[in-house]
């Protein structure tokens, strides 16, 4: 198993009273609450943490969010290009540009090709479907988000792999009549990733052979998404998937004692408890977001009980963020650990939590550790990452790539 480190570079310094009073801490919180000097310090610390990972053999991930305290990484390719130059050894994964928000995927292909050249072929490319507040921040709608996602990926793939002069793309959602990017990527085609938990997209990811990432989905949701992927691939007559085509992202805090690890875990949970607060128009009322059949429980102030078990199961399968406003708020470290979204404690304990989760969901070849969030300090982060690299990573590397879905 490979390990990857990510930090969303959040901004945890807005007064709690301001956050409590704001209907949303994403998309609409005025940026006067962002002190540029503090932001600069945060970027410096966090980029140093990525460089520490390079020294320790942990691959690095850059993510993207827009317009809120949860992350200041509004432009993923910018961080990619910095890491491409500043790191020397590890793989660099963009997970990813929120591609359905970009009007022109060809520009993204150009940016990725450039980062791949600068890193001499260490770039990996991932795609994530954007959330509601990002959709608002970027002046797009969530309707046809899935269609735009795959069309953009197809266009980027073609732009990265075509070398015979300009080609024309006039699709349903994107038009670019003269595509011929310079430079071409260093690799023939960087490995591609997709982060998704819904069954339909999971099936597409399986058929396309991309690395399938589940973010904070817990054991049941992850197992189900992996299974949809594996089944679709088998039904398409493609070779069976191996575990290196699967990954899981969780909050990871390692301490010298259980208590120290859990204290880090509590700080990491700021991501769920504070930074996800979002106004209803960016979540449950987002047109093109929740399916229309879910509307009665979403619109009513006093939702009625599900009519039957089938209806209850359908509601339970909805993402918490759309089914209820701020669905993951109020999560404690113990709950998060129980739900498989936090791996925290001593190195022994963290290894066992990861291994148990891995075995339960049917195997994955990449652990994406969200290693810094909320009020964690630079020193705390470095200590946790060092402990992870020294005492957890060697054991994870022992977990070999095998056929995926071994528990199905």
């Amino acid at each position, binding site marked *: 198993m490979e390990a990857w480190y990510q930090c969303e570079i959040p901004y945890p310094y807005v007064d709690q009273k301001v956050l409590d009073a704001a209907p949303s801490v994403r998309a609409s919180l005025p940026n006067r609450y962002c002190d540029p000097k503090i932001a600069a310090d945060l970027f410096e610390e966090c980029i140093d943490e990525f460089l520490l990972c390079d020294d320790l053999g942990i691959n690095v991930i850059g993510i993207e969010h827009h317009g809120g305290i949860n992350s200041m990484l509004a432009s993923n390719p910018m961080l990619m290009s910095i890491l491409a130059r500043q790191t020397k050894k590890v793989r660099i994964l963009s997970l990813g540009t929120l591609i359905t928000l970009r009007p022109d995927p060809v520009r993204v292909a150009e940016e990725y090709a450039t980062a791949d050249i600068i890193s001499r072929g260490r770039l990996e490319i991932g795609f994530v479907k954007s959330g509601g507040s990002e959709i608002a921040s970027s002046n797009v*709608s969530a309707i046809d988000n899935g269609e735009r996602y795959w069309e953009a990926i197809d266009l980027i793939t073609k732009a990265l792999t075509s070398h015979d002069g300009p080609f024309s793309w006039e699709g349903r959602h994107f038009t670019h009549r003269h595509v011929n990017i310079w430079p071409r990527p260093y690799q023939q085609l960087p490995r591609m990733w997709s982060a998704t938990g819904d069954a339909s997209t999971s099936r597409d990811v399986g058929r396309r052979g991309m690395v399938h990432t589940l973010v904070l989905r817990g054991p049941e949701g992850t197992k189900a998404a992996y299974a949809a992927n594996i089944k679709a691939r088998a039904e398409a007559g493609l070779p069976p998937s191996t575990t290196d085509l699967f990954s899981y992202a969780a909050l990871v805090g390692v301490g010298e004692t259980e208590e120290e690890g859990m204290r880090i875990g509590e700080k990491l949970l700021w991501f769920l408890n504070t930074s996800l607060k979002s106004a209803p128009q960016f979540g449950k009322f987002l047109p093109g977001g929740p399916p229309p059949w879910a509307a009665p429980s979403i619109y009513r102030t006093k939702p009625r009980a599900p009519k039957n078990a089938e209806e209850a199961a359908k509601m339970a399968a909805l993402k918490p963020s759309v089914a209820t406003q701020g669905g993951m708020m109020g999560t404690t470290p113990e709950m998060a650990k129980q739900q498989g979204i936090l791996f925290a404690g001593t190195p022994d304990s963290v290894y066992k939590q990861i291994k148990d989760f891995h075995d339960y969901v049917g195997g994955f070849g990449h652990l994406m550790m969200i290693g810094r969030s909320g009020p964690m300090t630079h020193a705390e982060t470095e200590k946790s990452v060092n402990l992870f690299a020294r005492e957890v990573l060697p054991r994870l590397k022992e977990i070999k790539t095998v056929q995926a879905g071994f528990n199905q």
Partner: protein
Amino acid sequence: MSTRMSTSNTAPAAERVALAGVELEVLRSGAGNPLLLLHGFQHLDPASPLVELLAREASLIAPSHPGFGKSSRPDDFRSVYDLVNLYLGFLDTLPQGPVTLMGLSFGGWLAAEIAVKAGKRIGKLILVDALGIRISEPTTPDILDIFNAHPREVTSKSWHDAEKFAPRYDDMEDEDIIQRSQNWETLCRYGHHPYMHQPQLKRWLPSIKASTLVLWGASDGIVKPSYGQAYAKLIPGARFETIPNAGHHPEIEQPEALAAAVRAFLKS
């Protein structure tokens, strides 16, 4: 189910019309010269008082836009361009002679587009709290962004008396809530970008041949009466009137006053 949403036994039944690959739900009521009514954010409730009031004045024809109500929306039907072409074709199915075209809110945008294109086929044009153009400089939103604003703000700006008229979802049946949610999504598909307007429409409004009345809820906070006045100024000879004690939906808050203004205009 709230009383406003209920479908009484006396409400006219909707017909289904197949046109350009769309199964269109069309409400017809009354007799006389045709009045084609294009709805706004939600499709027309057959039991709404406006239907009965307008049916006294004309032969009311009220389709639900594709993707609203029970009208189908084929996958390749995606834009206001499609809607305008559909209704231009629909006009051909109506009896010869001038048609009165009336549009509410989003339907007002469609009505203005159709009036530009259909020339003398439209005898009279009635725009009610219509969307469709841009008036102000770039940093002043003419039309409240109903998709990005908090639902509380959308409600307070939609109604003169929100307490009395805003939809009460807690009292509605599942199917009505699902329908409203579906309508909202379809509205977003058609009107998200450019937001609720066609940048070139303003240029063509002076070519409208129809005699035009522009009506506006005096308390409309979605799109203000000053926008309606500017809209009316762009259409040759158009008259502008406000309807007191109404927000963006005078057809729901003041159906009698709205119908009276229509009656007077039809007789003029």
